[in-house]
């Protein structure tokens, strides 16, 4: 038995993950540098961790609200799909920082980006990255509202501990 199964056939969901990873990581490296590399690593890890917590809890045995990729097993591409969340979190924080979004605009910003997040998730369902068993896309909306708010809190925690440049 293979501990981390490699896909037997490279079909549409694997290609979608590969292309999304390629486009999103090239995209964030093309953006002008606003955050140090260590912050980028922490944001990517933070996003992957949140996704892992939800998948480990909701997609695991017994509950099994949805599956990732081809089977109910934990595949290599399941692990790679966690790296997809990082670039989106980075762009989310990049825009937040660049335009200094505050007050009620912050509420609108989080609400709108959560809609975009749910839309992207719906696209991943079309490409069989996610297979919903007892889950629906609309359930993800409050989850993204929470996660994106947490991301902003985490970002401020990191900023607080960055040395002040004279």
């Amino acid at each position: 038995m293979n501990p981390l199964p490699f896909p037997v056939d490279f079909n549409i969901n694997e290609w979608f993950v590969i292309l999304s990873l390629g486009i999103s990581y090239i995209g964030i490296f093309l953006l002008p540098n606003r955050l140090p590399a260590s912050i980028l690593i922490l944001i990517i890890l933070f996003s992957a961790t949140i996704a892992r917590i939800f998948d480990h809890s909701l997609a695991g045995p017994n509950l099994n609200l949805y599956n990732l990729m081809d089977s109910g097993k934990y595949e290599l591409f399941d692990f790679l799909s966690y790296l997809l969340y990082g670039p989106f979190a980075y762009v989310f924080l990049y825009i937040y920082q660049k335009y200094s979004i505050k007050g009620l605009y912050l509420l609108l910003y989080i609400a709108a980006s959560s809609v975009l997040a749910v839309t992207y998730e719906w696209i991943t369902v079309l490409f069989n990255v996610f297979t919903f068993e007892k889950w629906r896309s609309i359930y993800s909306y409050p989850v993204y509202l929470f996660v994106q708010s947490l991301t902003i809190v985490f970002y401020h925690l990191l900023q607080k501990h960055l040395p002040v440049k004279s």
Partner: protein
Amino acid sequence: MSITMMITIIMFMLIAYFSTKKYLHIFEQCFLFFLLLVCYTSFLSIITVNLELWKLSEKSQHLIAFRLYGMLFVPITLLWAIDLWQTAKRSFYSSAVLIICLIATLFLGDFLLRNDEVYQYRQWNQWMSLIVWVITFLGALFAQKLFRILLRKEGILS
């Protein structure tokens, strides 16, 4: 009983961790916690779902206890040990005591859950768990060293 037990020992670990002096920068602590959580929960998924070397109970309270064990108990224990290692490594006696306490704590958590039949070993034993914990500890320590080099390069750490 398993949830109560697991929440109790996690709370002990959290209180102990947050009340002791830290030797790692907050960025290093975050980095290690996230890395340990992702890696150890991935390991648990591989062991229970892919390879079926552990048999998980089907009771929902046991599953919750198991999730808490993988997402909080083991990562926080290892994180705390790596934090204490920064000062313990200077003395052979301190580092030996730390390693013994780390292994004892991890074995305790594992024993309590197996005793309560949250999961059972199939083609697995405690020595294999020990090897996994040692590899995870050493791997995380190595990753922390690399991350520290990056933080120093960026001027975040002196």
